[in-house]
Structure formats: C-alpha cells, structure tokens
C-alpha cells in the first residue's frame, strides 16, 4: 500500500496529486448539489432553447441566433456536432431553435 502511494506520488507529483484529489472532490460536490435541485440534462423532450442554453456555453460564449442565417447555422452546427460530440437529438433541437429564434 505504501509502495503504491509512493509510486502514484512519484508519477503524479505535486501539485498534480493535490489538483486531481481536489477536482475529484469538486466533481462529487457539483453533482451532489445539482442533482438535488434540477435534473437538467440531455433528456429528450426538452425544448431546443433550453438545450441551447444549457449545452452551448460550456466551452464558449453563446452567439445569438441572429448571428448567422439558417444555411450558415447548418454548417456551424454540424461543426459543433463533431467538435462538441452532440447527440443527434441535441443537434436537431438546437438547430431548429437557432433557425427559428431570430
């Protein structure tokens, strides 16, 4: 056991270990807090607007639906489908929202 912790320590180092432990704790905390309140998720049946608001700002600021025309959104959303690994349902609903929300 001591050997194992030593190996992990040498491999992962400081502050790497501290950060991994911290992040693991944080993950647990965040999940704990948010599943209690809202079961916000990818579940189907949610509107495109909601899916857009929830999923698109994890990586960057969201651009208003009026930024692009329908044809441009089709290309951008296919790009995002691949880059952000969207489910087909998310892709479909969000694209419909972006096309209608102008």
């Amino acid at each position, binding site marked *: 056991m001591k050997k194992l912790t030593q190996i992990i320590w040498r491999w992962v180092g400081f502050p*790497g270990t501290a950060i991994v432990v911290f992040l693991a704790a944080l*993950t647990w905390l965040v999940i704990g807090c948010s*599943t209690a309140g809202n079961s*916000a998720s990818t579940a189907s049946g949610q509107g495109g607007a909601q899916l857009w608001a929830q999923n698109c700002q*994890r990586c960057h600021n969201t651009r208003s639906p009026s930024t692009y025309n329908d044809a441009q959104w089709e290309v*951008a959303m296919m790009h995002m489908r691949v880059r952000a690994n969207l489910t087909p349902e998310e892709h479909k609903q969000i694209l419909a929202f972006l096309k209608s929300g102008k």
Partner: protein
Amino acid sequence: MRTLFPVLLTVLLLGSAGIYAQENKPPPGEDYVSRAEYDKLKAEHEAMKQELEGLKTTVRQIANGTVPAPAEGPSTTTKSPEGKQVVTEATSQSDLDALHEEVDSLKSEIKGVVPGTTKFLLAGYGTAGFTARSGEDPFFDAAFNAIFLWKVNDRLLFEGELEFQFEDGNTTTNLEVAQASYLLNDYMTIGVGRFLNPMNYFVERQHMNWVNKFPDKPLAVYDGLLPESELGAQLRGVIPIGPTKLEYAAFVANAPDLITTPGDFSTLGMLDFGNLANAGGHIAVGGHVGFIPIPELEVGYGILRSKVGPRDQAVEAILQSVDFNYVRDSTLLKGLINFRAQWVWSHVGHFIYDPDGGQGFGPFEFNNNRNGGYVQLAYRPTGFGNIIKNFEPVVRYDRLNQLHTPVGFDEQRWSFGLDYWLTSSAVIKAAYELDNKNAGARDQDAFMLQVAVGF
C-alpha cells in the same frame, strides 16, 4: 389576413382534388380524354397555378413587411345578453400559427433555390496583441486564423484551418487543421487528416483567442508537454447514459520525435510534436473520455502512447491529461462562473543520450518525467447593468515542472486578467502575469493586451 389562408387552402385542396378526380375518373362510357378536354383542363390547371403563385407572393410580402397586411379580417361586433358590445377577435391564434407555418415553408423553399449558400461557412478569428515581458523587448503581434467549413451532405463535413502569423519578421502560414469527418451513425464519427489533438482539452476546445480568456496560453498544455495537432485518423462520438453523457475519442497518428541531438541542450529529451514526416516511423495511439453528468460540467481523461526515438533504440512515451470544466449561471452570484483546470504528465522511457560522447555531454541519462497544467476561474456579472456585465475578471495559476530534466527549473505563474466583451465573440483582454522560477532561473513578469474577434 383571416380570409387569406382559408382561400389558399381551399384553392390548394380543390386544385389537387380536381386533378385527382380528373386523372382517376374517366368520363362514363369512355376510357380516354379527348385533346380538347385535355387542353381545357390544362388551361384551368395553369390558371389555378398562377393564382396560387400570386397568393404565395402576397403572403411572402406580408411576411417580409414589404406590403401592409390586408386590413384585419372583419371583426364581428355583437351584442351580449347584458347589452354590452363584444368584439370577437377575428384573427385566431390557430390562423396565425398556420400562416407562420406556411411562411416558414416558403422561406426554406426560397433558400433551397438560392445557389451556394447551403454548404459553406467561413469562420475563424483575428487577433492583435501587445506583450511587455521583463528581460525581453516589448512587441506587437497579429494573427489571422481562417476556418473553412464545407457541409458536403448530412454526413460529411470538411474542415480546414489556415493560420497566418508574424514570426521573426516574416509572415508564416500554417495548415493547422485539414480534416474530413464522416458521421457513421448517431454515436460514431470518423475523422481523417490533420486535426486538433483530441486528448488535449485546452487545445481542442479552449485555445482559440476568442474563447481563451487570457492573451497568452497556459504552460504545459499548450506548446508544452502535449501535441497541438495530430496527423492521422480518429473515431469519436457520444453515448447518452440516462440523463448523463459519455463522450469518447480514439486516434492513431504520426508519433512525436525524441530530441536526442539538440541545438540547445535544455531541449534534450523533449518530444518534438511537429514531426510531420514521421521520422522514426512509429505510430502513436491515443484517446480521451469525457463524462458529462450535467450539461454544465465535464470531467475528462486523455492518454497518448507511442514509441519514440531512433528505430533501433526506441523507448516508450506516455502522455496523460485530466481535465475539468464547469460553467454555470449562478443566481446567487448574479453571473456566470467559469472554472477550468487541466493537468498533464509526460513520461519518456529510459534512454542514453550521446552514448559515445561525440556531442560532448554524454553518455547522459536522466528521469524524463515532467508535469504541469493550469487552474482558472472567471466571473462574468451577467446579472448586472449594461457596462458592468461586459467585464469579466479572470485569474489563472499555471505551472510546468521540469527541474530534474536538462531544463533545470520549475516555473509557476499567477496571472490576473480583465476582459471586456464587445460582442459574444469579440473581446479586449488585459493581463498581468507574475512569474516565478526556481533553481536560480530568471523570473519574467509580463503585461499583455489583446484584441480578439471570432466570426
């Protein structure tokens, strides 16, 4: 307005019913239509078509606001039993909805016939910056990244990125990305070509200047211990598990090269990721898995393994990365919280450098382990007034540990930044960076400004 839609519908219905009837019911006693009858029918049909087109045009004009809508349909004024006047709104919601639907279908019909707009998007970003770093001459720089996206069809996407940059007084051009992606099915997409490294979260999803919240990029994750792009093939996708999602990417690519004959001794034993010709002839295998329990949070792990170095003395390199990204609208803090962290480890197997002493420092060996990464927190007060909500203060800690390698020191920095968002993808950034190196290496604090515009 009210009369328009029923008329349109009636015409359509009558038209199609009429045609149907004519086609299917020959006149009694005869099983063919005479030329005269046919011509008469055809003329009627043409007239009907024209009428329909006329109606469509009117609807379109109304929708675009180029002509005023016909006066609100006749409102019926009746006397209620109490003797009060009651006005019944003539235009009911369902009429409106139906009209909207019609307008939408017309819109997409029109777009369908305009050539060339359905498939191509020019995206990307432009950057202008200024850096004053202690011990170096201050400088201005500028760059332009153009991203060409072709949606060939519903399954095939081509993506190319060209970066134009000033380097040592010259303009350089880099082909950062050239990838064809094909959607095999709902859960699998295959990509071939040159693509951003999927096991490096920062590189694949955060390094773009309109996304990254600092003028510079964190140590270790960018231009550090992990490659920025890969030349090979990847398989990626997402598996929904109940309300959560698991995303994955797996790839094979040209291997990095091990630096064994360096121009600069401190780079000895580092990995050269710009190995486009694949010197050494090894293949790297890698991947990333990301767990998204709620849309605001993603936790991921990435790995890359490869043989590196000369073919006859190749050693193993293992690169690993953990990433954590959490973005949440907080009503309590009246704003958007943005917390990101990534830590990476690089391990290169035991190798004897300059075994015969020909380079003047060998034989030389060392434990080739390095690690580093960053933790960053930003807050955008979206719940406040006009000007305030455009500001975004941000703080970052980043670090790169390589004291026991030929580099000979660890570096850590604290950076404080203030961003001002002009639009959702145009930003002005200012940052001050406190640098701290050990083992007697020189600390280099820096002040930086940057304007970035994504389009």
